[in-house]
């Protein structure tokens, strides 16, 4: 009998590999045997150590997180989006599931019985190949885009540590420098210097005989034991050979075990076959860190917004791995800040390429969290644009151009994944795209009349950082703000900012319980942004402004600088800096886990020590509040 839903599912499947290899009729046949499951948010379809199901799954709608749990901590391995397949283990292995698949949002799954699908696998090698590869990676996106990020379904624990082995393939030099054994040491040294490389393989008929590295020159030649005219085979060291397709972890182990810095790749891994390349310690370092430097390089030449989006996703991976590896959050912050800046810069670049060069000099300033370089997750964009003063008759055209430019940049950034600012604090908005004079007046107005419009929070405009354009404009703007500050000793303004800082809803109740959201979409969750992070951010801002500290935008650095400037409060400021970083970490981890901006975190999901840790982050707030209250005599507003 005819079944239009089976056809619709077949139609859906036909867009994704490996189903692309099957005909529509075959797919309809498969679809007839499919069972459809709805999975509520946070419900698991299978858990670690569950016995295998008789089917594998294709995500029809929603998102499924694949994770492992160790030491009561959940580590996210991968995300499956519509069209992704998961739970292939029953196809290939007999033991229980080794991962937990949990819905990150309400999802629909198609369960395809193994028995139905097996004949198609047997008859179609392309399908089999795809499934085997997916079994190792379980994600379509990682296959398409970066082939070196394969996460195996088999998770191994080393020494009961919570280490996951990342089976990364390694990028290495496929054309190593080689010399004959009869080459002269001096020539070899010259060759290495010319090629900017630290090692050379000594070979005969492309079979490796030995290796000469910088250390041979240091220990054997520079010490005078050998003359620079000797043959190279007299100073070479034995070479360690490895097979092709080595994983990152294996290469690392080899180097540690053999205590060498270079591995020579040969066809079968022995020193009897031909050379295929050389792996250096440096290759391993860059493979491990998902090198942000390279990321920035790639961003600089990204051709369009979708490539930028892909690169931004890489940054997210980098952040996730860094946090897993306990790299200090201040460091991650700096790197993420640079990468984000590079993305914005490139977006402006691309927009200019598209609509023509600007009629006047300008500066694109990031404000808010990006301006402070505290943007680890994809939070909304905040920006402003300032252009140089132009003749009155040109003003309109110039402004029109910049508005157009800004709108283009903003929509590009939206494609990359930064949501629009809810309050319209973006350069594409008429009000936030102005000439230098207009901006100076605007800041002037804000500072002399701070509470004119109390519903309008403009304090984020004081955290600007140049992303693109003329740095002089940014400097001029900073100067004008600071000259305003010193000229008038603007008490009212500081009082206003100070008041804003301490006005935030308290994180804990009278009984030291977390104040959770009482209603709305985020009911029962903790608003870490408004209740904990923003008070620190706001306080740091007003304190640095009143201390005339220029050019320090980062909240963490601001507190550090404040500690240096005001020794009597140094302890408090240092505590604030630490607490702030910890809060940022909590937010980032929650954001990564839930795939959102992490503003609302679930206290229930925290372990008990984590809850205490989080509570401790609120302790310095009290002292901070006292400082602000005393300093700015908060009687103007409260």
């Amino acid at each position, binding site marked *: *009998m*005819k079944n*239009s839903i*089976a056809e*619709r599912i077949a139609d859906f499947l036909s867009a994704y590999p490996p189903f692309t290899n099957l005909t529509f009729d075959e797919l309809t046949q498969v679809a007839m045997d499919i*069972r*459809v*499951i*709805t999975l509520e948010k946070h419900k698991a379809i299978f858990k670690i150590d569950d016995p295998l199901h008789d089917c594998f799954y294709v995500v029809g709608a929603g998102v499924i997180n694949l994770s492992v749990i160790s030491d009561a901590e959940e580590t996210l391995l991968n995300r499956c989006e519509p069209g992704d397949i998961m739970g292939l283990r029953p196809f290939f292995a007999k033991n229980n599931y080794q991962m937990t698949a949990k819905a990150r949002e309400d999802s*629909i799954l198609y369960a395809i019985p193994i028995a139905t699908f097996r004949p198609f696998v047997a008859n179609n090698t392309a399908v089999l190949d795809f499934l085997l590869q997916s079994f190792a990676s379980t994600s379509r996106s990682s296959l398409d885009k970066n082939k070196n990020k394969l996460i195996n379904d088999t998770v191994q624990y080393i020494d009961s540590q919570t280490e996951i082995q990342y089976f990364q393939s390694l990028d290495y030099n496929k054309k190593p420098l080689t010399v004959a054994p009869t080459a002269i040491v001096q020539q070899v040294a010259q060759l290495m210097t010319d090629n900017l490389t630290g090692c050379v393989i000594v070979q005969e008929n492309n079979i490796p005989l030995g290796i000469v590295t910088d250390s041979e020159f240091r220990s054997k030649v520079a010490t005078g034991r050998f003359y620079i005219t000797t043959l190279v085979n007299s100073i070479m060291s034995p070479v360690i050979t490895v097979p092709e397709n080595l994983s990152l972890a294996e290469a690392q182990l080899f180097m540690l075990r053999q205590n060498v810095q270079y591995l020579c790749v040969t066809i079968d891994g022995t020193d009897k076959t031909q050379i295929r390349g050389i792996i250096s310690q440096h290759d391993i370092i860059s493979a491990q860190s998902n090198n942000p430097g390279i990321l920035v390089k790639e961003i600089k030449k990204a051709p369009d917004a979708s490539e930028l989006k892909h690169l931004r996703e890489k940054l997210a991976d980098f952040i996730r791995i860094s946090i897993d590896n306990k790299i200090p959050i201040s460091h991650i912050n700096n790197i993420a800040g640079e990468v984000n800046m590079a993305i914005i810069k490139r977006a402006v670049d691309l927009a200019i390429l598209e609509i023509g060069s600007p009629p006047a000099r300008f500066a694109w300033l990031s404000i808010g969290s990006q301006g402070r370089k505290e943007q680890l997750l994809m939070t909304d964009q905040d920006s402003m644009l300032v252009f140089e003063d132009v003749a009155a008759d040109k003003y309109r055209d110039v402004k029109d151009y910049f508005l157009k430019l800004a709108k283009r940049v903003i929509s590009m950034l939206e494609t990359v994944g930064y949501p629009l600012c809810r309050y319209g604090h973006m350069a594409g908005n008429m009000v936030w795209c102005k000439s230098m004079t207009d901006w100076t007046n605007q800041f002037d107005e804000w500072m002399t009349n701070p509470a004119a419009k109390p519903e309008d929070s403009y304090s984020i405009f004081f955290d600007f950082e140049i992303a693109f354009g003329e740095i002089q404009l940014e400097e001029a703007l900073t100067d004008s703000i600071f000259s305003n500050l010193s000229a008038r000793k603007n008490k009212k303004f500081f009082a206003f900012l100070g008041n804003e800082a301490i006005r935030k809803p308290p994180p804990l109740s009278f009984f030291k319980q977390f104040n959770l959201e009482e209603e709305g979409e985020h009911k029962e969750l903790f608003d870490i942004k408004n209740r904990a992070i923003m008070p620190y951010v706001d306080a740091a801002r007003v304190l640095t402004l009143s201390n005339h500290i220029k050019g320090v935008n980062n909240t963490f650095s601001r507190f550090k600088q404040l500690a240096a400037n005001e020794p009597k409060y140094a302890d408090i400021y240092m505590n604030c800096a630490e607490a702030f970083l910890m809060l940022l970490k909590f937010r980032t981890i929650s954001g990564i886990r839930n795939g959102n901006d992490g503003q609302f975190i679930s206290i229930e999901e925290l372990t008990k020590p984590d809850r205490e840790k989080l509570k401790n982050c609120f302790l310095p707030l009290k002292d901070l509040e006292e400082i602000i209250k005393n300093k700015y005599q908060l009687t103007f507003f409260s």
Partner: protein
Amino acid sequence: MLDWLKNINKDYPDFWKAYLSKFDRRSPRFVALSITTTGHDYKKDVILSISGFGILNDEIIIGDSYEVVLLQYVYNHDHQLSNEFIVESRQPKALEPDGIKAFVDYIGNATLVGHRVNFDVEMINEALEKLHCGRLKNEALDIEIMYQKWKDLNDDKHFTLAELSSLLKMPAIEKVSASEDAYAIALMFLKLKSRLGLK
């Protein structure tokens, strides 16, 4: 009771007897059901198509489906509708008696699930009466009422299928046909069932 007395000496068609004999025990199976009709008056209007999807163990069984377009000669004739479109379409077709018979065989003793399911059941009962059968004995669940229960709403709040679908954040229903609707009802039912904690 009266119904039973009235029918005690009636000789039912065989398919109906087979249907009745299935009710010895409760079925774990649900059938999500959607019908299209010519209107909302179950005395005057007729069924144009019926679709159903089986649900077992919280899984929609795609293969367990029923789909039929009923060729309503009288209706088409009265309204001077061309039969061509219906005849040309690729959907399985049947005359009303055969379609209803097959449907009764298909649902068996499953619990029916629908949107405003009482109307659907009533329409089918009318068709059954023409075949000299009794009324459907299946239990029936209504996703609209389930939604009202879950949200603690009054029962005077009504939602169309499309509204429910977006309220429950389900993927949009693409084409409007009885089987799309039945599938959507099945998905919503599963979600509501788990929200309400029904076994």
